[in-house]
């Protein structure tokens, strides 16, 4: 049975990745998760420099989901390379580093620095964090900026480049196209949905940042729809993210068109979820007499016209 998938030149032993911001720097989970058994470990977003993040409270639970406004607290790329990469190499993790910049030049600089680091398999570009302007929506909500930042990183590195897209736009497929046109090897989507929760007794926002990003099973159907739309509009692989909590959910994204997936919030609830997801995928392949999981990618049978609403022309 073959669970492997390919993201451009990057061969993954299975389609499961940790979602950035939901798995620390990976090493936090080394006691409970065999990191080498994951398709890839996507680490928490890194700027060049250390960052403090927002004041607590930083999360709040909502129906079948949660809001977060962490504010990209992080140790910066240099400490990451020095303090975390040796352990990740030792554990034989396939490491995808999520990078964030305040300027296009900072993204390119991060890409150059990480290109020389042994054990870094790919770069995910965070152009979609809803909780910080820089490193977030500044680039991810504007087609020209998205194209610019991906172009700059593409020129700076030979590593696979994976822009992570925000769902907080009208037509996400157009952003996937812009990323592809600028030379991206894949796109990952979705980041969290900009959202808000209010303490009605105190008439105050629950989060110190006022707004936060919604994740968890609550967003899954919207994320599946967005992956379906994007997969129909680009030739590069789409990595599906959004509320995955079971093997069934992984399969749903893959059938919609995702080549691989990332699991975030569900890992908070159950850090032992990874082997359960893998065995669920294997059982599905057995039940459906399939040899290779990659045969499921985009295998949706609609029996109808795929889209009534189709703002971006499809590529076939």
């Amino acid at each position, binding site marked *: 049975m073959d669970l492997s998938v390919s993201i451009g030149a990057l061969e993954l032993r299975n389609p499961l990745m940790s979602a950035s911001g939901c798995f620390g720097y990976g090493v936090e989970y080394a006691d409970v998760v065999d990191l080498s058994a994951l398709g890839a470990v996507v680490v928490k977003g890194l700027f060049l420099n250390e960052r403090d993040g927002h004041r607590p409270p930083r999360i709040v639970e909502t129906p079948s989901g949660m809001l977060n406004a962490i504010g990209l607290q992080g140790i910066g790329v240099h400490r990451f390379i020095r303090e975390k990469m040796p352990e990740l190499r030792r554990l034989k993790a396939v490491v995808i580093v999520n990078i964030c910049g305040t300027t296009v030049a900072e993204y390119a600089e991060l890409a150059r620095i990480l290109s020389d680091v042994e054990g870094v398999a790919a770069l995910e570009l965070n152009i979609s964090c809803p909780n910080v302007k820089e490193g977030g929506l500044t680039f991810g909500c504007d087609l020209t900026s998205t194209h610019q930042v991906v172009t700059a990183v593409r020129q700076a590195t030979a590593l696979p480049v994976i822009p992570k897209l925000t769902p907080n736009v009208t037509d996400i497929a157009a952003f996937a196209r812009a990323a592809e046109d600028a030379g991206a090897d894949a796109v990952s989507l979705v980041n969290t949905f900009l959202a808000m929760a209010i303490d009605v007794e105190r008439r105050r926002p629950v989060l110190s940042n006022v707004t936060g990003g919604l994740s*968890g099973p609550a967003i899954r159907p919207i994320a599946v729809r967005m992956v379906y739309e994007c997969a129909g509009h680009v030739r590069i692989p789409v990595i599906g993210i959004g509320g995955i909590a079971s093997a069934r959910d992984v399969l749903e994204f893959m059938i919609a068109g995702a080549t691989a997936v990332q699991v975030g919030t569900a890992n908070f609830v159950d850090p032992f979820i990874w082997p359960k997801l893998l065995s669920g995928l294997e059982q599905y392949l057995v039940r459906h007499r399939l040899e290779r999981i990659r045969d499921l990618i985009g295998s949706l049978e609609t029996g109808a016209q795929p889209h009534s609403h189709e703002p971006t022309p499809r590529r076939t």
Partner: protein
Amino acid sequence: MPIDVEAEVLWNRRLSPGYNALALSAPAIGARVEPGQFVMVKTAHGHDPLLRRPFSVFEILRGDDKAPRGFTILNKRVGPGTARLYAATPGQSFSCLGPLGRPFTLVDPPFEAWMVAGGVGLAPFATLAERLRERHCAVTLFYGAKQADELFAVDLFESIAVRVVLASEDGSRGMRGLVSEALAHELERREPDPPLMLYACGPEAMLIAVCKLGAVHRRPTELAVERVMGCGMGGCFSCVVRVRDGEGKTRYARSCIEGPVFRGEDIVWE
């Protein structure tokens, strides 16, 4: 290394309309847990509520052969998750991830231990008192709540020769006022020797007061903080506490892996 145990409810003791002690069958966690460590409890199967809730381990339950069979948690009913734990019945089970976090430092004689608890902040002190008494430390518990019917398990501490000083805000049991005032009162009257370690767990205002008293009276303090926590494993960066980094700067530390126990002098109160 934490483990995940589907723990059956052994019993559920309602302590008041808002509080209960819930006994969970989890021998492996009971055997490993150190005072101050916590477990993440999933209060429902499925997605509602979604996230686990952190609880200090209260008592370690032992069988007739003294082998650990599980532990109890002290639960305060505040939302849907804690309401489910309040209503739990034997036979039900809850997924418990633990033990997690950095425990209290145990002192030895001649050190005495003064534990300061506010409300459900009592929870980590049953196991701490037990371990300190095994080491022959003199132990005092300062324990405060709003009113008499929210002061629980006093006999549990007295049965292992812990001196208990009670305070209630309405004066219905023990000293009238805040537990930190009871602590201040005794600290002022105490000779420098023997040395004293202050341990505290409770509302933030109480922790700040204990921290200040420790500084004024030159007593070391260890505080177990409570924060909104997403994962308990260091993954989400939500439960941060501002701490001094030793180089004159401050930073946010994840209380799930660097805490929940911090030295009082390391915390910067925001």
